[in-house]
């Protein structure tokens, strides 16, 4: 099936030329005034940022609602004004009250992924049912919060939005609950009906307010809603409550005592399936048959003829469809009708039989007046045990991937979804989780949840994570550290290097050399460490002293990260030794720096100049060997580059060289004498 193109409201390519730019999480569309060349329609800008997948894929509502548009910009109506549209994938993640839903469900999701796979059979099923219940309670908690927000807000637009959200959440819970009963718990004939009754009772809430009203009145049986309440109790199989109310009627109206007693007795004796193994289905069916016949007899004898209300109740007990249908207004929905029908005509219904009853219920209830709504279609698909259809319909209707992603994951854990390969090779569960998590990544804070979801997508999760994680804005160091930790834990070395480089560059620009070094150590980035050291050395050459001594003095083993860094550390050590007047050690170090080629060539002159004061000391410091070495270094330096013309022409430089040569020669002279002298006795 073809994908209907999504339109960005207000952006009309036929009226204005549009151009767009991809952002990390958004698409910017703007109107331009450039003249159109060629006349062909430009490609619709409303495609989602992830290309190939969406072309023509209809599976699970692939692209159907990938984008929602919102206007960002001024200008209203005037033909010459341009507007910029910010088109975002997933609006829902920005709703404040839904954050709890995303966070809590993340916790449940992780718990499910980590749960014991070895548990088999009943205990595993019980575990999965618990997970499903947890999800539902999170939805309900969110609904409650949303309701509170709707009640307490003064802004009518906001109130409308919240109310809509509440009804959406309520529908989600309804669907999920049904899926739990039919798929996760896979209730069998008998318990199936009980679960369905619970389901109906939970989701038709108008009863409670009516009940309260009736019970709190002075004489409940005279209340105009009295029989409504009794009827709804009977329709929902709440026999005890119905009998309790009926007793009030009986005490207020003694003439009907006889009828009441019979009806009460029938209601008390009605056989219902039990949850435990106390009776088999056949036993139940037998009992039920007897009871049904008894009711039939009473009805036919005209026992209830004088009281139409009681007669209608009796008919309901007999499963008379017309009688039940009369109470349409009370039941409000066809699925309520369905369950009531089942309760009173076929309590031992098997799961696979549900579809027939469901279809006929819809037909009878709606009667051709109205067409089924999306919610009805979804529930129908569930009753027909068409899981894929349920998911597909939900994807189309809902504006957010949350529901389908989590439900599909749960169903997958129940081993109910066959690996339904989609065009590009991953299965439906993975596809939905990828979509959901991608949506999370456009949020400045919820992206952390997305990471875990990607982790549990075996085929494409890692690739998606690699692409997304580099686009998270790193506003503070703490955020960068969190991102880095995620990358390191998953051995995403490229990303680690890239992020550390970004942070190191930022630090360098802000003149935080220590921070920059710290980032390059984390990434083990030798090249950057070299860059930083060069910066230090440059500073030293310009100012004659070191900045940030606390850093250079305390490099420790990280000094070995890059040669330049080692040189920097050692050079500083040389200065320290000199300051402490430990000249022989200083001299040795200086020489090593040059001979071991740790020092960059550009720095040799500086080093040799540093050697000058040592050469000029009263005491002879450099040995003959060392002096020869120094001379060799000097010659290497001066003889080396023929194109260093300015080096020759520069007076200061030539003077330095001269001085060095002189000092070296003098030192050599002294040291030869000293070494040649036999120690005096």
């Amino acid at each position: 099936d073809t994908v209907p193109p999504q339109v960005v409201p207000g952006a009309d390519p036929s009226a204005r030329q549009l151009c767009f730019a991809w952002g990390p999480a958004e698409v910017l569309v703007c109107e331009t005034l450039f003249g159109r060349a060629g006349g062909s329609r430009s490609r619709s800008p409303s495609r989602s940022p992830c290309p190939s997948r969406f072309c023509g894929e209809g599976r699970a509502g692939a692209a159907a609602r990938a984008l929602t548009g919102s206007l960002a910009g001024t200008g209203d109506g005037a033909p010459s004004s341009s507007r910029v549209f910010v088109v975002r994938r997933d609006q829902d993640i920005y709703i404040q009250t839904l954050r709890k839903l995303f966070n809590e469900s993340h916790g449940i999701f992780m718990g499910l992924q980590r749960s014991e796979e070895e548990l088999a059979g009943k205990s595993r099923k019980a575990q999965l049912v618990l997970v499903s219940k947890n999800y539902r309670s999170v939805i309900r908690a969110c609904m409650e919060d949303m309701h509170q927000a709707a009640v307490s807000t003064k802004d009518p637009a906001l109130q409308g939005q919240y109310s809509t959200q509440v009804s959406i959440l309520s529908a989600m819970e309804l669907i999920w609950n049904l899926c739990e009963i039919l798929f996760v718990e896979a209730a069998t004939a008998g318990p199936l009906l009980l679960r369905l009754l619970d389901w109906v009772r939970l989701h038709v809430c108008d009863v409670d307010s009516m009940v309260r009203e009736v019970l709190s009145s002075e004489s409940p049986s005279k209340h105009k809603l009295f029989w409504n309440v009794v009827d709804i109790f009977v329709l929902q199989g709440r026999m005890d409550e119905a009998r309790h109310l009926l007793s009030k009627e009986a005490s207020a109206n003694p003439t009907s005592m006889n009828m009441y007693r019979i009806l009460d007795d029938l209601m008390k004796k009605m056989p219902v399936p039990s949850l435990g193994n106390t009776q088999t289905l056949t036993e139940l069916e037998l009992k039920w048959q007897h009871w049904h016949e008894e009711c039939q007899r009473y009805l036919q004898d005209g026992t209830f003829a004088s009281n139409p209300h009681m007669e209608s109740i009796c008919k309901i007990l007999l499963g008379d469809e017309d009688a039940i249908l009369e109470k349409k207004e009370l039941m409000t929905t066809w699925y309520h009708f369905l369950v009531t029908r089942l309760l009173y005509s076929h309590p031992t219904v098997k799961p696979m039989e549900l579809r027939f009853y469901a279809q006929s219920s819809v037909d009878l209830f709606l009667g051709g007046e109205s067409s089924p709504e999306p919610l009805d279609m979804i529930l129908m698909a569930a009753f027909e045990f068409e899981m894929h259809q349920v998911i597909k319909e939900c994807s189309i209707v809902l504006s957010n991937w949350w529901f389908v992603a989590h439900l599909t994951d749960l169903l997958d854990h129940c081993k109910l979804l066959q690996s339904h390969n989609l065009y590009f090779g991953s299965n439906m569960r993975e596809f939905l989780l990828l979509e959901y998590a991608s949506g999370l990544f456009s949020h400045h804070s919820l992206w952390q949840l997305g990471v875990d979801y990607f982790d549990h997508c075996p085929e494409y999760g890692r690739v998606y994570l690699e692409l997304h994680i580099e686009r998270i804005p790193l506003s503070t160091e703490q955020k960068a550290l969190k991102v880095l930790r995620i990358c390191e834990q998953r051995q995403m070395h490229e990303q680690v290097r890239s992020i550390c480089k970004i942070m190191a560059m930022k630090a360098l620009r802000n003149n935080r050399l220590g921070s920059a070094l710290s980032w390059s150590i984390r990434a083990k980035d030798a090249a950057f460490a070299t860059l930083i050291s060069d910066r230090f050395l440059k500073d030293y050459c310009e100012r004659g002293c070191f900045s940030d001594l606390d850093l250079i003095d305390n490099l420790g083993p990280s000094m070995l990260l890059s040669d330049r860094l080692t040189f920097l550390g050692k050079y500083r050590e040389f200065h320290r030794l000199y300051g402490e007047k430990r000249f022989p050690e200083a001299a040795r170090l200086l020489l090593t720096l040059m001979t071991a080629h740790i020092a960059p060539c550009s720095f040799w002159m500086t080093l040799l100049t540093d050697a000058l004061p040592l050469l000029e000391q009263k005491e002879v410091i450099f040995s003959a060997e060392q002096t020869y070495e120094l001379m060799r270094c000097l010659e290497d330096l001066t003889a080396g580059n023929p194109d260093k013309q300015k080096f020759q022409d520069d007076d200061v430089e030539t003077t330095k060289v001269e001085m060095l040569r002189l000092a070296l020669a003098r030192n050599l002279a002294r040291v030869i004498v000293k070494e040649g002298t036999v120690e005096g006795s």
Partner: protein
Amino acid sequence: QDNRISIWSAGDLGNAGLNGEYHGEPRLLCDIQHNGDVMDMQFLDQERLVVASSTGTVTIFRHHQNNQTLSANHRWEKAHYHVDQDTSCGGAACTGVVCSNPEIVTVGEDGRINLFRADQKDAVRTIDNADSSTLHAVTFLRTTEILTVNSIGQLKIWDLRQQRNEPSQIFSLAGDRVPLHCVDRHPNQQHIVATGGQDGMLSIWDIRQGTMPVSLLNAHEAEMWEVHFHPSNPDHLFTCSEDGSLWHWDTSINVSEKPSFLHPGGRSTAYLSHSTINQSVVSAWLSNDPTKDRMEITNLIPNQTLSVNSLDVLGPCLVYGTDAEAIYVNRQLFA
């Protein structure tokens, strides 16, 4: 982004049930908008709260208890900033704040230390470029001395009485210069300091002697964000980490009891390095004998998922917050 400072009531002490459990969930009393991420905060006194922001601003909020509102009392904009004006508004995150009424000390990503006085408009003292790397946390050592930790693994003592802009002492770890993220001082014995590093290592220092830590304890599997000595029970220490765990370190147990190291991965080991000086007052934290004075370490979080960013402890109560946008209150720490 909509960041808020919120004040919650975690239930009255008088509502303790039979088992001493508190009833009811924490209730939101009041909140106020905050510009930027909240990097650190501390109460200045009963009513005022100092908050450090990622925009480089330090704000004092006042909590009005009579009508349960919060208002911004005083603000120091650009307390922390970078020199490069090309960056967005040039602000640098303020990473740590510590108070000792009326003084407030803040440190930031710009390597700057600020000394403020509540209600004084300008900083009393600023040490620019105090550190060439990011200062991650600060705490008071004595009334006039502070401790800072930075991202090249150094612990520095600063004497605020002195006018020179140099630390009076620098300590660092022996091996790699792993960044230190948090620091806390023993409440009673001021020479004992604990720091937590990026590799999750807990270091205990005796600042009277040596420049290296006394103990290095291999703790968490990721950055240790905060470390706190229990203010009234200093034999107990709490650390929280990016790996989602919160550890309770208990040195109050006896010699005779076998230690139990409860760590999910089972890879926790304690390296106790040997100090060379005998101390007359033996604190369990400075123990140099691995056979005596063991520690009991407990992970207080059963199902860890996302990072625990911050914690605080007072009396029998422990509060911590996670990246799953949840705050947990434990009111029976020593039950």
